[in-house]
């Protein structure tokens, strides 16, 4: 009995301290990394593309990943490509020479045995070998052009589209976490109260006194928390994909794709890998940055026009930025046509979800569709035919 009282006392004490506790925010800065030479910055490490591994005594390995101020965000990416290509480049050049040799030999045989098809194939392979030679010889230059003259010109040299995309997704996830926390705080003690039970050891009078509160005050937040977790999973999934692409995909896949593109039987796979690397490294985050800017600017404009506007449904739509007018107008119309008490209760718990779903699911889906479309168009230009697979991917979206 005494133990139960002590436990109850602990719970009450802790519950009283709840608001004073804060969660630690995740950060991608300062992640420990292995550093071969602590006296100089190291680009070719496990840091995300855009960060450099530099000496840090606070880190467990003595080095940590940081964004170096002043430098272009993509300089470490270029350095990674150079590092990879210093290994793959000579092998790829050898492959190109082999391709020329095979094509020339086939042409000789085609003339010798008077096989027209073989001659045609040899000519076609010669052109492909030229294209591969250009790609192999100028990969570093092409990467510079894509980054310095492409991304930097479109977005600005100091704008890291990956950071913008991460911020966009954090901007979606953080309110969700806040809402989850608020709903939990809101329902915890009410839910406990709904279990209040009149007890007697004889007679039929066992009654849950406050269970009627459950469908009104407990179940709607539970439903909202259920949706929040689902949307949160989608947002975290996108963050993981972005990190994966930024950290590893480009610097590994691009050289490999160029190498595989040299040989006839792996040309399709190579071209596709190049298209995937470019599509996911350039197109995907760039479109993300555009969408993020679009929604940020919209929110700023709304804030400037009406700094003290209060939401009529108990939710501040400015937190969620996207298409505020539409949702607010729709909510107003619904409010006018339905039972005000019911609408107010529903809005209280769920009206934040549509704009969040728009930002967490709809916009990213469009971004993904644009990326896939780019890959579908770019892959045939690079020697890969993915028309059927591409159709399947579009169906997947």
């Amino acid at each position, binding site marked *: 009995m005494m133990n139960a009282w002590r436990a109850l006392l602990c719970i009450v004490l802790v519950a009283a301290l709840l608001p004073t506790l804060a969660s630690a925010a995740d950060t991608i800065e300062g992640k420990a990394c292995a550093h071969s030479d602590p006296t100089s910055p190291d680009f070719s490490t496990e840091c995300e593309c855009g960060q450099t591994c530099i000496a840090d005594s606070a880190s467990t390995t003595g080095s940590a990943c940081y964004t170096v101020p002043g430098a272009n965000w993509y300089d470490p990416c270029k350095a990674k490509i150079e590092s990879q290509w210093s290994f793959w480049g000579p092998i790829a050049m050898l492959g190109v020479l082999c391709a020329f040799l095979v094509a020339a030999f086939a042409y000789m045989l085609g003339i010798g045995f008077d096989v027209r098809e073989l001659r045609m194939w040899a000519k076609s392979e010669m052109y492909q070998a030229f294209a591969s030679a250009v790609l192999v010889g100028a990969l570093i230059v092409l990467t510079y052009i894509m980054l310095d003259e492409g991304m930097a010109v479109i977005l600005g040299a100091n704008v890291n589209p990956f950071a913008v995309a991460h911020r966009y997704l954090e901007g979606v996830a953080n309110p969700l976490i806040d809402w989850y926390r608020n709903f939990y705080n809101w329902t915890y003690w009410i839910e406990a109260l709904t279990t209040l039970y009149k007890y007697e050891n004889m007679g039929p009078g066992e009654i849950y006194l406050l269970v009627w509160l459950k469908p009104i005050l407990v179940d709607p937040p539970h439903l909202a928390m259920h949706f929040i977790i689902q949307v949160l999973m989608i947002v975290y999934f996108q963050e993981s994909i972005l990190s994966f692409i930024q950290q590893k995909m480009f610097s590994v896949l691009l050289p490999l794709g160029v190498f595989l593109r040299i040989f006839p039987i792996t040309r399709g796979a190579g071209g596709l890998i190049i298209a995937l690397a470019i599509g996911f490294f350039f197109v995907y985050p760039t479109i993300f940055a555009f969408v993020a800017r679009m929604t940020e600017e919209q929110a700023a404009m709304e804030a400037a026009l009406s700094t003290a506007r209060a939401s009529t449904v108990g939710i501040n739509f400015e937190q969620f930025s996207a298409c505020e007018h539409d949702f607010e107008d729709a909510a107003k119309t619904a409010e006018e046509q339905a039972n005000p008490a019911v609408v107010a209760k529903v809005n209280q718990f769920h009206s934040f979800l549509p704009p969040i779903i728009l930002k967490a699911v709809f916009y990213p889906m469009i971004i993904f569709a644009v990326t896939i479309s780019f890959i579908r168009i770019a892959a045939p230009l690079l020697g890969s035919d993915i028309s059927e697979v591409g159709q399947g991917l579009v169906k*997947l979206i």
Partner: protein
Amino acid sequence: MGFPVCSDFSSFQGFVTGWQPVVIMATFIVFLVAGLAYILAGVANHRGVRLWAINQVYEGIVTLIFALFFIGLVQWACTLDAHMLGDDVKCAPCPEAVAGADPTLACTQPAFFNIQNLTVANHCGTFKVAEFYVQDFRNTIEQAFTTVAVLNGFIAFASTFTWYTAPGGIGMQVSLGHGLTQVSQSLSMGISAIGVGLLLAMAQVLLVRISEQLFGYLMVAGLLLRSFGATRGFGGSLIAIAVGFFLVYPLAIVLLYGLLLNNLHNDYQDLVGATQSSSNAFSGIQDALASINNMINPVAWIGNGVNAAFGFIATLAVGIIFIPLVIFIVLISFIKGLSAAIGEEVDVSNLTRLI
């Protein structure tokens, strides 16, 4: 069913040696038929039959080359060192490793290509490393599943905490921990997601093993069918599928899962770190307070336990959705290219309907 080609190379060699004369015999029959047709075409002065006969001879020669050099090619492929994809590739544990030593170190080969010593290179071979990676992926998911399930067990247990008082037989009862049920339900969703991930990872492990085991059968059947004109296209397609799953699939797994596993391990460590804070032993009143606090405190939970669990699930989702998708389309692209070159282009439109 079948045998792993690289792990059990001698059985594979025996199997191929048994079938090789059949393929060669079939090719010679084709040569014979083509020769007869050529003679008849010369007698009848039929240009079409003559061209057909020449074409059959060309294709027969190609099939003969495949059949004769097939074992050598497979041996080369089996001894491809996975380090060609990067120095940070880890070899599979070696059975011959010294007890107590790091099993991955004993078979690390610095050489780029290791063709001489098949036994050692086998453990750094792409198939072994691919299987090791997907197995590691699966094991990490399994551990996370257990961790989150135990965590959820604690939460579910705490949610049953009930207080009652009944002086004189009449009183009241209230479930003080009942508010935790929602957190428990959220974690249950996480457990379901991890469970699905575990199933898909198991399927990947099986697919890697099956693709190695089926290679011998598919390749021999492909060669045999490719010998005859009527089944040449289908035979070429079978060879392309066999080679795609034997060469490209494990290489793609080593490359892409190798990139992901570090992140997954880090996320799992975060998850373990976050859950340890809530499962500390009750060594004193301060720890007890901290533990109970972590159990029911939403701020700490969202910030640590639940957040870490869903962070892990996000990385897991990359491994079970995004990476297999990339591997699949690269593989299909390779199979299409190779089948078009040696036989008949595989029609993948039916496969895309599966998506």
